[in-house]
C-alpha cells in the first residue's frame, strides 16, 4: 500500500500530465472505484490551483500546469477564484483590505447584488501573527537601530567638524579684524604725516618771507648725540637733554646721532610723557657724518610745548620687520614772549 506522501505525489503527477499512459489509466480506474482516492484527488487539485495562484509551484510544475492542467475551462474558473481570494487574503494580512484599483469596498456602487453588501465597511480581521513575521520585525528593528547608531555617529563627527570650522572662522575673523585695525592705524599715521608735511611747508613759507636777521631766532637746532641714545638692548641709562625754546621760535631742527647700521631707513615717533604722539616721520634716511650717521628732522615749534618728550627711533631693514633702534629724551622749556 502506498504512503500518503506517495499518493499525494502520484496525484500531482497525474494532474500535471506527468504519468506514463499505463500508470495514468491504472490511476484513473482506481479513483473511479475508490471514494477516498477520488476525494483526495479533488482536494489536491484545488490545492494545486491555490499553489499556482500564490506562486508556490516550481518552474517545471508551472510549465506543466499551464500547458496541461489549464486546458479545462472549469479549472481556469477555479484558478480565477483562487487568484481573487489570494489577493483578498494578502490584502487582509497586510492590513490593507483592498488595493486602490480593487473596488471591493465601493459600497456606493449601485450594482451591489445584495443590500447587505452596502453594510460593508473597512473590516480588519485580526489574525495570529506568523512567527516569521515576528522575526522579520525583530531583524528590521535591529537593522534600524544600527542605521540610527551610524547616523548618530556620523552626525557627531559632522558637528565636531562644524565646531572646528567655526573656530577657524573666528580665528580668521580676528586676524582680518587685526589687519583692518592695523591698516586703519597706518592710514591714520599717513594722514597725520600729511598734516605734518603741510604744517612744515607752511612754516618754511613763513620763514622764507621772514627777514634774514630774524631767522636765527626762529629756528632752533637741537642735536642729540649718541650719549643720549638709550638703545633697545644696550641697557644704557636714560639721559634727558633740556632745550630752551624762545617764544619766537618757529621751527625746531632735531639732529640725532646714530651709529652705522644695516637699516635702510628709520621711523621717528615723538611722544609726550603721557605717550600722546606729537610728531611722526617714516622712511627717514640716515646721512653719513664721519664714522657716524645722522638723522635730521624738522618740527614746527608750536607743536612742542614745555615738557618732556621721548623720541623713539625704529630701524627698517631692507627685508623683514622693523625693530626698535633706541630712544632719545628731550625736555623743552618754552620761554614767554616779552611784553
Amino acid at each position, binding site marked *: 500500500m502506498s504512503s*500518503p506522501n506517495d499518493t499525494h505525489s502520484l496525484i500531482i503527477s*497525474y*494532474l500535471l500530465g506527468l504519468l506514463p499512459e499505463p500508470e495514468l489509466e491504472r490511476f*484513473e*480506474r482506481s*479513483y*473511479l*472505484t475508490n*471514494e477516498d482516492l*477520488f*476525494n*483526495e*484527488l*479533488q*482536494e*489536491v487539485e*484545488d*490545492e494545486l490551483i*491555490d*499553489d499556482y495562484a*500564490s*506562486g*508556490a509551484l516550481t518552474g517545471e510544475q508551472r510549465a506543466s500546469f499551464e500547458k*496541461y492542467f489549464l*486546458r*479545462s*475551462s*472549469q*479549472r481556469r474558473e*477555479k484558478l480565477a*477564484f*483562487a487568484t*481573487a*481570494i*489570494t489577493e*483578498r*487574503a*494578502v490584502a*487582509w*494580512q497586510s492590513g490593507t483590505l483592498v488595493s486602490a484599483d*480593487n*473596488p*471591493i*469596498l*465601493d459600497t456606493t*456602487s449601485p*450594482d*451591489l*447584488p*445584495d443590500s*447587505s*453588501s452596502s453594510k*460593508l465597511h473597512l*473590516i480588519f*480581521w485580526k*489574525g*495570529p501573527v*506568523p*512567527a*516569521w513575521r515576528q522575526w522579520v520585525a525583530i531583524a528590521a528593528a535591529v537593522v534600524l537601530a544600527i542605521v540610527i547608531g551610524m547616523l548618530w555617529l556620523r552626525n557627531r563627527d559632522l558637528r565636531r567638524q562644524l565646531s572646528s570650522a567655526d573656530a577657524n572662522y573666528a580665528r580668521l575673523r580676528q586676524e582680518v579684524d587685526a589687519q583692518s585695525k592695523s591698516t586703519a592705524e597706518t592710514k591714520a599715521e599717513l594722514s597725520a604725516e600729511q598734516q605734518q608735511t603741510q604744517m612744515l611747508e607752511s612754516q618754511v613759507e613763513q620763514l622764507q618771507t621772514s627777514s634774514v636777521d630774524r631767522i636765527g631766532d626762529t629756528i632752533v637746532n637741537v642735536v642729540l648725540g649718541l650719549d643720549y641714545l638709550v638703545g633697545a638692548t644696550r641697557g644704557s641709562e636714560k639721559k634727558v637733554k633740556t632745550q630752551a625754546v624762545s617764544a619766537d621760535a618757529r621751527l625746531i631742527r632735531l639732529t640725532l646721532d646714530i651709529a652705522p647700521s644695516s637699516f635702510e631707513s628709520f621711523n621717528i615717533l615723538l611722544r609726550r610723557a603721557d605717550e600722546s604722539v606729537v610728531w611722526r616721520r617714516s622712511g627717514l634716511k640716515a646721512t653719513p657724518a664721519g664714522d657716524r650717521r645722522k638723522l635730521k628732522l624738522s618740527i614746527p615749534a608750536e607743536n612742542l610745548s614745555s615738557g618732556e618728550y621721548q623720541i623713539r627711533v625704529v630701524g627698517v631693514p631692507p627685508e623683514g620687520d622693523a625693530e626698535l633702534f633706541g630712544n632719545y629724551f628731550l625736555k623743552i622749556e618754552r620761554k614767554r614772549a616779552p611784553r
Partner: protein
Amino acid sequence: MSSDYNTAVVAKYKLELQGPAFQALLNWLNPDRDCAGEEYVRLHRRLAKIFEARGCLRPEDCADETFNRVGRQLLEGKEIRTDNPPIYIDGVARLVLREQWRKPAPEPIEEVSANRLPQDPDADATAKSEKEAWHVCLETCLQQLPSESRQLLLEYYAEEKSRKIETRSRMAKQLGVATSVLRNRIFKLRNSLRGCVATCLAR
C-alpha cells in the same frame, strides 16, 4: 461546487429517467432505484473528472455520452457480463475519449483575434461592473462564513510562494490535525464559498 454538480446531474438524471435506455442503465447499475441514482451521480462525477484531465472541452457531455452508449447497448439486449460495472463503464469511456481525440481541435478561444470579434463599446464598463459584482459577492460571502472559518481560510490563502507550504504545516500543527485533514477542511470551505459566490452572482 460539488453541490452544484450534483444538482445539475441529478436534474438531468431525472429528466432522462423516462427514457428506456436510461432505465436499463440504472437497472444494470443497481436494482434499487435510489441506490442506482446515487451510483450514477457518483460515477458521472468521476468520469467527468477523467475526461477533464484528458483534455475534453466538455467533460460532462463526454460522461453523458459514455452512459448513453452503455444504456443503448443494454436496451439493444447486449448482455454485459461483469461483476464490476464501473470498470466496464471505464472501458467505454476510453473509446469515447479516443473518439474525442480524433476530432479536430477547435480553435482556442485565446487565439481568436480581438479584431475578429464584434466590438462592444461598453465591454470595458461591463467587465468592470462584473468584476466589481464578483468582488462584492466574494466579500459578502466571506462575511457570511463563521468567524473562525473565515479567518482560517484567509490565513490559508494569505501566504505566497514557498511560505504557503510552511503555513499549511504550521496551521495544521496549531489546529492539532494532519495536513490532509486541514486540506479537507479548506476544500469544504472553499466549495462552500464558491457556491455562495455563484448564488450571489446569479441574483
